[in-house]
Each structure stands twice: as C-alpha cells, then as structure tokens.
C-alpha cells in the first residue's frame, strides 16, 4: 500500500513521496505548497480514520518517555532536512530509483538507528 501510494503520486503528479521534504517544503514556503498540503491532509484523514477504526495500530504502549521523544524529534527534523530525506524519500522512493545518494543515506541512517536504539537498550538496562 505504501508502494502503491507513492506510485500514484509519482505517475500522476511526477513528484516523489518523501514525507520530510513535503513537510519541510511547506515550512519554508518557497516551494509549491498546494499539492503538499493536499498530501498531508490525506495523511491526516487517513490517520483519523485508522485511529477511529483500528486504534491498536497507533498504540503508544512501550513508547519512549516524553523528554526522549522531544530530543528524538529535534534530531529527526534537523537531520532529515540536512540529509534531504527520511525513510520514505530515501528509503522507499530513492532505493526504488536506485539513487546513489539514497543508498548512502539509507545505509547510514539504518546503521545509526540500530546503534542508538541498541545503545539506549544497553544503557537503560
């Protein structure tokens, strides 16, 4: 479904479904905004529908404490803008195109993601 959604956006509109870029493009306001807002509105409506029907898919059980989520969010926001992509843009879209930049980005963020999650586990045990 994620692949189909990205394919729909690509084939109809010619754009890549990179979530951090879509949000970042709205925040900077110097790029085409309308299609980005429409896509994020779709995410919102999809999110609301799922929350109403299958709330278990959004379970926060076992999630990190709030201060950690705060730090994590800042790193994710800054890092995805600096590196020009996240799991969707580099991961799904970029690897589908066999983009060298995306391959380097995915290998890097997978490695540091595994490293930080595992390190946190070791430290807090």
């Amino acid at each position, binding site marked *: 479904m994620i692949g189909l959604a990205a394919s729909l956006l690509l084939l109809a509109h010619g754009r890549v479904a990179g979530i951090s870029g879509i949000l970042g493009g709205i925040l900077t306001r110097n790029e085409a905004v309308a299609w980005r807002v429409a896509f994020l509105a779709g995410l919102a409506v999809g999110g609301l529908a799922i929350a109403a029907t299958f709330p278990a898919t959004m379970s926060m059980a076992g999630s990190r404490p709030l201060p950690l989520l705060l730090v994590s969010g800042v790193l994710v926001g800054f*890092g995805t803008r600096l590196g020009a992509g996240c799991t969707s843009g580099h991961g799904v879209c970029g690897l589908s195109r066999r983009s060298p930049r995306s391959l380097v980005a995915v290998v890097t963020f997978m490695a540091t993601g595994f490293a930080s999650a595992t390190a946190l586990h070791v430290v807090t045990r």
Partner: protein
Amino acid sequence: MRELAICFASGVLFAVGLAVSGMCQPAKVIGFLDPLDGWDPSLALVMVGAIGVHALAYVVASRLSRPLVNGVWRFPADWPLDRRLFGGAVLFGVGWGLGGVCPGPALTALWGGSIQMIVFVAAMVGGMALFEGWERAQARADG
C-alpha cells in the same frame, strides 16, 4: 483540482499503509532497530515490499514523457555524496533509534491524538525550523 485530489488520495493510502504495516507503533519500530530484545525483522519486509511495488512505477515512468495528470517529472538529484547527506542521515538515524518514530508515521499517528505524537511532531517541526535558521546563518557567514 483533479491533481490535488490525487495527491490527497495518495496521502490517505500512504497513511493506511503505514498504520497497517505497524510503522505507527514506536515499540514495534524499536523492536526492529534493537536486536537485543528479540529482534522483529518484519518492518524490513514492509520496506522491501514497498520498494518492489514502487520500482515498477519507475519502469512505467521511464516510458512516459511526462506524468499522467500534470506537470513534469521532478526526481531528486542522485549526486553528490557529500557531508550534508551523510551528516543528516547520521542525525536522523540517531533520532529514529532514540524515539522509534520517523516523519511519515509521526504525521499519521499524530491524528490518534496521543501526547507522545504531539510532542514528537512539535519537536520535529522545531528541528526543521532550527535547520532553516542554521542554513540562513551559514549563508550569511559565506557572505
């Protein structure tokens, strides 16, 4: 208008796909990124599946002169492999491992209304704003 409706529909489908696959549950993502506590590799299959489907779309795209509804192809650059790309991916990965949340699932699960996702999305937008400020400062320093 038709174009925006398609972008909207793509967003709805994307959200449902993320939720169904388990990406909107931070504990499941952490279970993938932290192999010490009974590794759950299922999310790797989600990514491989999405890439498999989406790669076909690129085969189709390569045979079309322009997108079906509107506009022109806008593919991100394939090069360079520079410090920004690498540094950004390092920071994003560390943040992802600490929180178990990445941008798509955050903007989807936000609408479940949990305090966790509200805090995360606010921090993520703050991080993006911080980046814009940092970039402007860099541009000034470069004169």
